């Protein structure tokens, strides 16, 4: 009985000793290195870009584990674990560097394409601007040549005050203020010009010859000017753009000596402003 007890105690002692001896040296640094290593192993960038560095780190970690298995002192295990830890960190940095570098060519190509697009946009904008300017110039030219033709049709003259269209006596009913059909047609042409040149205004001036009394002539000149304004308004020109004056027998164009000269003096002059809209009175 005693022998059995002794044997059991001996076996226990052996088991204890063996168990003790199979426990490797562990340090917190070695555990930390293992933890870093499994993080690195799970990082796709590390396996893609730093497999060699991770392999070297793994070898270093194995050395540390071997030392631990062979009961090396904690200092030796820590020294090897530290080297492994630094090598694991190195593999992470190499992965970061290579993944950043890998993105560069494609991104640089993207940037260059965008720069090109921007450049093309600028060129297109400049072309469009030139085209717009040319179109505007052509339109202005066409417009002014149309106006010149219309003014020539009305026998307009360039004077110091501006463009003057003269409505002769024959466009009015004899000794009356109202326009005859030819006069109406002339006013229609003038209203076309005014509608196509919205910034231009008109000053309508009525004149008579020296026959009859001055007061009558003054009234007749005003009524003829007024009649022209009425015709323009009927043709759609707003009153705001029209100024009228009656000058009676003043400002004759010829001496009132012959019937032909007197007829020339009986007239309505229409002063057409430029694009500023300003009218210069006599």
């Amino acid at each position: 009985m005693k022998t059995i007890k002794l044997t059991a105690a001996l076996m226990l002692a052996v088991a204890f000793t063996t168990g003790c001896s199979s426990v490797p040296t562990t340090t917190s640094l070695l555990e930390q290195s293992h933890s870093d290593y499994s993080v690195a192993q799970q990082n796709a960038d590390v396996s893609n870009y730093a497999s060699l560095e991770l392999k070297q780190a793994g070898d270093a970690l194995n050395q540390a584990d071997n030392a631990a298995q062979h009961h090396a002192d904690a200092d030796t295990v820590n020294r090897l674990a530290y080297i492994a830890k630094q090598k694991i960190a190195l593999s992470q940095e190499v992965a970061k560097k290579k993944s950043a570098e890998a993105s560069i060519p494609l991104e640089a190509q993207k940037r260059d394409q965008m720069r090109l697009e921007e450049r093309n946009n600028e060129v297109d904008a400049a072309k469009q601007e030139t085209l717009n300017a040319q179109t505007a110039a052509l339109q202005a030219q066409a417009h002014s040549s149309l106006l010149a033709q219309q003014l020539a049709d009305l026998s307009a003259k360039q004077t110091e005050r501006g463009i003057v269209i003269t409505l002769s006596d024959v466009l009015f009913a004899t000794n009356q203020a109202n326009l005859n059909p030819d006069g109406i047609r002339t006013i229609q042409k003038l209203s076309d010009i005014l509608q196509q040149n919205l910034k231009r205004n008109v000053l309508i001036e009525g004149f008579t010859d020296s026959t009859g009394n001055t007061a009558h002539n003054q009234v007749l000149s005003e009524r003829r000017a007024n009649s022209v304004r009425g015709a323009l308004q009927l043709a759609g020109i707003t009153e705001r753009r029209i100024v009228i004056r009656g000058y009676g027998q003043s400002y004759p164009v010829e001496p009132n000596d012959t019937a032909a000269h007197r007829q020339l003096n009986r007239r309505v002059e229409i002063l057409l402003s430029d694009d500023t809209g300003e009218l210069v009175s006599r």
Partner: protein
Amino acid sequence: MFLNSVISKYHSLLPALVALGVISGCSSSYTPATAQIAVSSAAINNADGAGGQQYAPTDMNAAQEKMIRARKAMDDKNYPLANSLATQAQADAKLAQSKADSAKAKSAADALQEDIRVLQEELNHANQ
């Protein structure tokens, strides 16, 4: 052929030669750690040149401090300690260099992204 004849001629000397090799192999780990010191110094210089001090000052300082201790251990003829410290310094320096390299690559990639962002804004603005 020549080698074979030499081996056969000095056959009796072979065990002695092997023994000598083993002894010199063993003794090499106790010779001054000059080679490791040189390798680690070069690693520190490279890391410094790559901008290690700017991008990874902690690792650079650790490497330099360990090199000072390694040289001190050399002076004290504690060669295993000198070798160990120099090896750690090398690992620190290589990590510092790697951190500097990755930081530079990242900043180049970031600068590119910023260029693209600005260009995209300009293009969006122009297309409005």
